[in-house]
């Protein structure tokens, strides 16, 4: 699918919410091995809230508001590190962006680049610090590397694959943030919970299309 309108963007994000909600126990499991085991609770709670608000407020007059609604819902219901971080993932892209009612691959790529900057700005994490940036940054780079970014579906497929690989890579790293940082070498071999969420989100968006 080349491009989608506001209503479809709402549906796409809601399908990402559903996918996270369905992964609650899995994410908790992942966070338990090197974190405090609440990532599944936090993410599913936030996504549930986002879905509620999107469903209640739809139809939206532009895509900016859709992302803003989702991001705010997450930040203000989740709390925790992931609330801010994943909120910024949705809010960062639309900052200072003109109203749009159609989303194509080019726009999405630009938005995710800005989202990545916002997340890094907020959390000060770089690739290799064993955070969701390990999945988000490769995804953004892969999208940007495409010669033709016009097709949203292709772009999302690229992001989803790169994020999935990023999750694998996150296993190699020592954590510098969150509760896993205190594990040092002992964190190696375990994937990062937030990175896992990022790849679940991209994958779900892609599969929606």
């Amino acid at each position, binding site marked *: 699918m080349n491009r989608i309108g506001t209503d479809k963007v709402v549906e796409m994000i809601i399908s990402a919410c559903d996918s996270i909600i369905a992964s609650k126990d899995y994410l908790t499991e992942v966070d338990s091995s090197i974190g405090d085991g609440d990532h599944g*609770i936090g993410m599913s709670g936030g996504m549930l809230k986002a879905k509620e608000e999107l469903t209640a407020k739809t139809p939206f007059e532009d895509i900016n508001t859709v992302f803003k609604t989702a991001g705010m819902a997450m930040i203000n219901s989740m709390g925790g590190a992931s609330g801010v971080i994943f909120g910024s993932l949705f809010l960062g892209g639309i900052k200072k962006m003109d109203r749009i009612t159609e989303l194509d691959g080019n726009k999405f790529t630009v938005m995710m680049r800005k989202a990545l900057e916002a997340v890094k700005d907020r959390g000060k994490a770089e690739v290799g610090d064993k955070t969701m940036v390990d999945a988000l940054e490769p995804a953004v780079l892969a999208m940007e590397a495409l010669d033709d970014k016009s097709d949203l579906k292709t772009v999302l497929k690229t992001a989803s694959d790169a994020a999935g690989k990023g999750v694998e890579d996150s296993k190699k790293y020592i954590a510098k943030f969150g509760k896993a940082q205190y594990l040092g070498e002992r964190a190696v071999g375990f994937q990062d919970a937030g990175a896992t969420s990022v790849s679940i989100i991209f994958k779900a968006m892609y599969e929606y299309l």
Partner: protein
Amino acid sequence: MKKIINKDSSIVDEMLSGYLSAYSRYYEPVNSNNSFTYKKRRKNKVSIVIGGGSGHEPLFSGFAGQGLADAVVCGNIFAAPNPQLIFETARAVDEGKGVLFIYGNYAGDNMNFDMAEELCDMEDIKTAHVRVWDDCASASKERYDSRRGVAGDVFVIKAAGAAADSGLSLEEVIRITEKTRDNINTIGLATSPGSIPGLNKPTFELGEDEIEFGMGLHGEPGIERTKMQDAGKLVERMYKELMTEMGLSSGDEVAVLVNGLGSTTLLELNIVYHELDKHIKSDGLIVHDSEIKSYCTCQEMGGFSITILKLDDEIKKYYNAPCFSPYYARGEIK
């Protein structure tokens, strides 16, 4: 693990609803139960707002009151509160003299409170923050600013509350609060895990005959895992760690807190103090004040922590000021 709860999703809301109805004479909620203010707070002063994840009761919910915090913001279990709620709470207690946020130094808390300060800034509410990082087992001395905040929160909140009540400027309150924070160290020991209510899952695994020095409140790994030993041996090791860290010497004045992590009994904590007292006396430290309480817990986690605050005349002045909350009350100390 039998937990006396109802629906998982409403655990924190029901907990705070119960707390606020039991202590309604002291507190009133700000919009939701997750944030509340101390009714009789002094006006026309710097406002102190504290907060963090829930599940560590009586911290933070029990430390708003006379001479303490003006408001508390509570997140979900082990998760920092959200920026909007923190902002609304700050706005509710702001007196135009500035709002000081005090919280433990955890990634989640740092980010949410930072974002809340940006929201405050947009409404011209002057803000600042002091992050508590007293757990000297959680990172090296060089990386002090990635250490965790644990039971030391109590002393920091105490000093900040007294400084604010005495009418000092935001800058002065910050200076005293940071100075207090920088004179506090804590070391903990875990004997058994807590659990996330509703999730019915231990926060970590520990052998039936094992203990771990320096383990964090959420099961963050510590500095050494050993076999269970006598109270005397355990305390000796922990005291040594604190001395290496703080380099205290004979004649130094200190305030001491032996803090239970949840299910460890007062009987045991008293025995810990009995052992601690021997070392303190033989090193010639002067104990200005000492407490044996469970202030900073992690559900039914077993174990304890030892916190030492090195006092000077200025810190002592604010430490000694009377204060009252349902979980932390002190009269003047003569």
